[in-house]
């Protein structure tokens, strides 16, 4: 019977309960989606990298036969022609080439202990087919490091077989068993292959990645050797000793330029810092930052609010609990049905959220595979995610409910059956009463009714604060994705970037073209940055501060750093920073921060930079242009439009993740406002009825009851704005410091306008719903009930 009583009682609040169910579901959904979405990639990627033994570092070598090599060749090879490059040597004398390579590998192994290394060879084949251009980078199959990984099918076993990436196959309708014509040779596709050193198919300085026109490929080693294209090579390495790994950057990479024993080594890059193999790590770290931090913040707020709402619902059951207690029911007999129904309402909602979240995680995780070459993901349900998404919030709600009921039950039945008598009036009510002495009683009531029960008032304020926070939080993320990706390019006036050849200098820019110097890796204050030398009077690339002012001309006085490098590296206006370029070093003051959020970019005057590099203020290595550049005159030309498209594709996961969080935060915020308003008005049921009986009309009653809540709701909303802005700043610095990720949350006036409009809409919607419900109860009945 008690169960039936509880069902019928709670049934009266079915809309609130349903909406609370929605919040509970969303909280579980968002955490599960993010955690499984990112977690599954992490697990699958780590497994894949382990199985295929991904390199820990890559060593680049100069493709030139050096003095020491000549000595080696003359001792061990019988060359009849003069060759100057290793790639040419391979075409002339393959054995000699491999002997020389083995010698270089031995030199490296003798120089450094605790590592294993292996030669990594590749050949790029360009071909046209059906009037489209394609490129395949064939990697020679390795036996130890960066082993090929088959997601489907098998490795080629004869020279007429080829393995390609699944992304390329699907984009071109190529299935395993189909034939593919590569530069006149026909191959049968034996499988879909991946290589762990190319999780991002980045084949050249041109960062345009398109899995439809380019792929990695695998042939038999014999067929690889048969390809006439020049070989490219690197050395892949793994650590065999943890202590070596820990000191590798300091002991090996940073001292490489001083090491005379390795003249043929041009660069050593750790996998984490190598874009083609390491970008996925920063992607996953970013995903974790979003998935685990932000979604956890949203879910925690949601569950906290649900706890408060459940508390309000249970307090409304005070009278019913009093009756049962007076009839002789034991505390546990009364408690169990309430706890049971809260459990059966919240548990399915949490399970539903978890289930939907795990479903949404798969397509979200697969967004990585649009651009990254990774194996397919399967959501492996794990107890940790289930615990955080379901068990923890469920336990929280049950424990909160239990303690609330326990507290109610600690009172005597007679106390529960009678009005909750105030033994005193709150300090605030007294103070406000004196302060508002001269204003009309209806105006006074607007405030004093709220202070009647400070606890309820505080709950209202906390609820509204979190609702406002979630709405502002969602709006602050609206432009975050564009800021991280395309805003920089949209704000510039150049459409093309031409990179000059290292050997042949560029032509002098014409028309609106401008000279620029780009140095991708420069040490500034012991931090690696991307230095751009820009004309201080540039009209093609304006540097804007956070107020939109053009600060490009400040380059004459020093450095302008991007907002992202300021956040990530801690550079501030007024800092004197040591800039090291080769053997030169100079101290330069930071004079401005430009509102750019991608990369560790720093700008300085091109003339000053040219002077440091070449003692000439006219030096440049890059050209920015509004119009198309002649591809014969540049090593590489990048279209900013293409980069924008590329950035959007590459950061698809971020985009989707942000969109989900924006929607979920907004909906939860709106629901909280609605439920709080309904509950608040229902709590004032007796007052509303009393005022009606006395003769107050609806307008006057609204002014007294709703007016106060509306006023304080708006006040708390306005208070939330600076708190939210402060929190966004903290979040931004937190992510920059701990995750090296820039999340440019922002607050705009229209956010406040939209949020206020949303608040007013939901408040009035809740008010109308609640009043409609209250109007069904007759006034005389209301007056006979006890007041709270």
């Amino acid at each position, binding site marked *: 019977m008690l169960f039936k009583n509880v069902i019928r009682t709670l049934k009266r609040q079915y809309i609130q309960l349903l909406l609370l169910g929605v919040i509970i579901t969303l909280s579980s959904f968002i955490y599960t989606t993010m955690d499984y979405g990112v977690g599954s990639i992490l697990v699958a990627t780590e497994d894949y990298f382990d199985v295929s033994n991904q390199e820990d570092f890559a060593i680049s070598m100069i493709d030139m036969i050096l003095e020491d090599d000549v000595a080696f060749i003359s001792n061990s090879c019988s060359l009849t022609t003069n060759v100057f490059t290793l790639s040419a040597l391979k075409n002339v004398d393959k054995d000699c080439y491999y002997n020389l390579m083995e010698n270089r590998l031995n030199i490296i192994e003798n120089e450094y202990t605790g590592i294993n290394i292996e030669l990594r060879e590749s050949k790029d084949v360009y071909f046209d087919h059906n009037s489209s251009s394609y490129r395949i980078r064939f990697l020679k199959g390795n036996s130890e490091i960066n082993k090929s990984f088959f997601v489907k099918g098998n490795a080629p076993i004869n020279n007429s077989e080829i393995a390609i990436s699944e992304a390329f196959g699907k984009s071109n309708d190529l299935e395993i068993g189909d034939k593919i014509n590569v530069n006149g040779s026909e191959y049968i596709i034996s499988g879909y292959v991946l290589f762990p050193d190319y999780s991002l198919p980045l084949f050249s300085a041109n960062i345009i990645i398109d899995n439809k026109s380019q792929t990695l490929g695998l042939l038999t080693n014999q067929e690889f050797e048969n390809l006439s294209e020049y070989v490219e090579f690197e050395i892949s390495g793994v650590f065999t000793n943890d202590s070596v790994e820990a000191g590798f950057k300091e002991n090996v990479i940073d001292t490489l330029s001083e090491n005379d024993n390795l003249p043929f080594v041009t660069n050593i890059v750790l996998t984490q810092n190598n874009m083609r193999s390491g970008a996925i790590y920063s992607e996953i770290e970013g995903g974790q930052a979003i998935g685990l931090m932000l979604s956890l913040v949203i879910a925690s707020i949601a569950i906290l609010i649900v706890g408060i709402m459940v508390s309000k619902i249970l307090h409304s059951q005070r009278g019913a609990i009093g009756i049962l207690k007076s009839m002789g029911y034991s505390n546990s007999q009364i408690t169990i049905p309430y706890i049971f129904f809260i459990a059966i309402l919240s548990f399915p909602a949490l399970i539903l959220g978890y289930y939907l979240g795990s479903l949404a995680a798969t397509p979200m995780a697969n967004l990585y595979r649009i651009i990254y070459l990774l194996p397919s993901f399967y959501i492996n349900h794990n107890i940790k995610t289930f615990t955080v998404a379901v068990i923890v919030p469920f336990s929280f709600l049950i424990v909160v409910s239990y303690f609330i009921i326990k507290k109610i039950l600690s009172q005597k039945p007679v106390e529960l059956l009678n*009005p909750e*008598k*105030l*033994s*005193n*009036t*709150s300090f605030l*009510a007294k103070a406000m*009463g004196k302060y508002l002495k001269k204003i*009309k*009683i*209806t105006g*006074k*009531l607007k405030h*004093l*009714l709220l*202070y*009647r029960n400070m606890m309820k008032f505080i709950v209202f304020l906390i609820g509204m604060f979190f609702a406002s926070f979630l709405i502002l939080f969602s709006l602050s993320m609206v432009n975050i994705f564009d800021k991280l990706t395309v805003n920089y390019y949209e704000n510039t006036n150049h459409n093309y970037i031409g990179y000059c050849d290292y050997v042949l200098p560029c032509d002098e820019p014409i028309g609106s073209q401008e000279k620029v110097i780009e140095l991708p890796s420069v040490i500034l204050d012991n931090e690696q940055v991307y230095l751009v030398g820009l004309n201080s009077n540039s009209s093609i690339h304006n540097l804007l501060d956070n107020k939109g002012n053009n600060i490009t001309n400040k380059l004459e006085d020093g450095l302008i750093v991007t907002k992202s490098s300021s956040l990530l590296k801690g550079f501030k206006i007024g800092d004197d920073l040591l800039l090291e370029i080769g053997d030169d070093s100079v101290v330069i003051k930071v004079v401005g921060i430009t509102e750019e959020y991608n990369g560790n970019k720093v700008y300085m005057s091109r003339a000053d930079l040219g002077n440091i590099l070449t003692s000439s203020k006219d030096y440049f290595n890059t050209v920015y242009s509004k119009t198309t550049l002649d591809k014969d005159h540049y090593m590489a030309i990048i279209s900013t439009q293409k980069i924008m498209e590329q950035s959007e594709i590459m950061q698809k996961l971020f985009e989707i993740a942000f969109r989900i969080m924006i929607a979920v935060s907004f909906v939860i915020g709106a629901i909280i406002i609605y439920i709080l308003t309904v509950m608040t008005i229902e709590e004032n049921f*007796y*007052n509303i009825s*009393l*005022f*009606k*009986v*006395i*003769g*107050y*009309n*609806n307008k*006057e009653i609204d002014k007294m009851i709703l007016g106060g809540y509306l006023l304080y709701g708006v006040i708390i909303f306005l208070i939330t704005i600076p708190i939210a802005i402060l929190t966004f700043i903290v979040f931004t610095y937190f992510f920059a410091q701990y995750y090296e990720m820039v999340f440019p949350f922002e607050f705009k006036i229209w956010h406040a306008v939209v949020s206020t409009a949303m608040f007013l809409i939901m408040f009035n919607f809740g008010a109308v719903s609640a009043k409609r419900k209250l109007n069904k109860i*007759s*006034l*005389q009945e209301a*007056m*006979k*009930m*006890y*007041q709270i």
Partner: protein
Amino acid sequence: MSIKLENVTKTYFSGEVETHAVKNVDLEIMNGEFIVLLGPSGSGKSTMLNIISGLDNPTSGKISIDNEIISDMNSKQLTKFRRDNLGFIFQQYNLLQTLSIGENVEVGREISKSPFTLEEILEQVGLSSQMNKYPFQLSGGEQQRVSIARAVVKNPKIMFCDEPTGALDEEMAKDILGILQKLNRTYKTTVVLITHNPSIGAMADRIIKINSGKIVRIIVNKNKLKASEISWG
């Protein structure tokens, strides 16, 4: 103000079950009269008071107050009518806990066209010295006096009292009834009081006995007693 009920019926429906709370009642209450509606619990007296006062609508029949037909009024018109003409006192005091005694009375005064002064009314109910206290600092009887003051301060033409002494002991109850009687005499306010206590009928001009939703008897009281003279049953 005079009140006239013509063939008034109030029926409640619960599924297929019909309950006639008030059945074909005809009644006329004169201006300035002190009327007691007397009946046992469930007799329909509260329903009748609610219908007469416009807090509830009759299922059929006509109710008019000074020729204004309130049974035809919509909610907005009824609110206006209550505001201008009626005062209510219930068994529960329904005081606003955050307001002082004076402020609680102000709640009634503020919407009236021709209210009494706060001081005058508090004097009438004997609470002048308690004006700045809060409800929780008063006894039950004192709180009921505040609710009377709140109802009377509007200068209503009619006072409806639903078991106003139901929660009070004899001494306090007589005290409250005395105040109502004084107001009735002083301001010529029509008072309609419902009670299950027959003793209270001794102070009324007329006693209307109700049972099963019908008026079973109307007694004209020729020997009205003061509230303090009532022998409590």
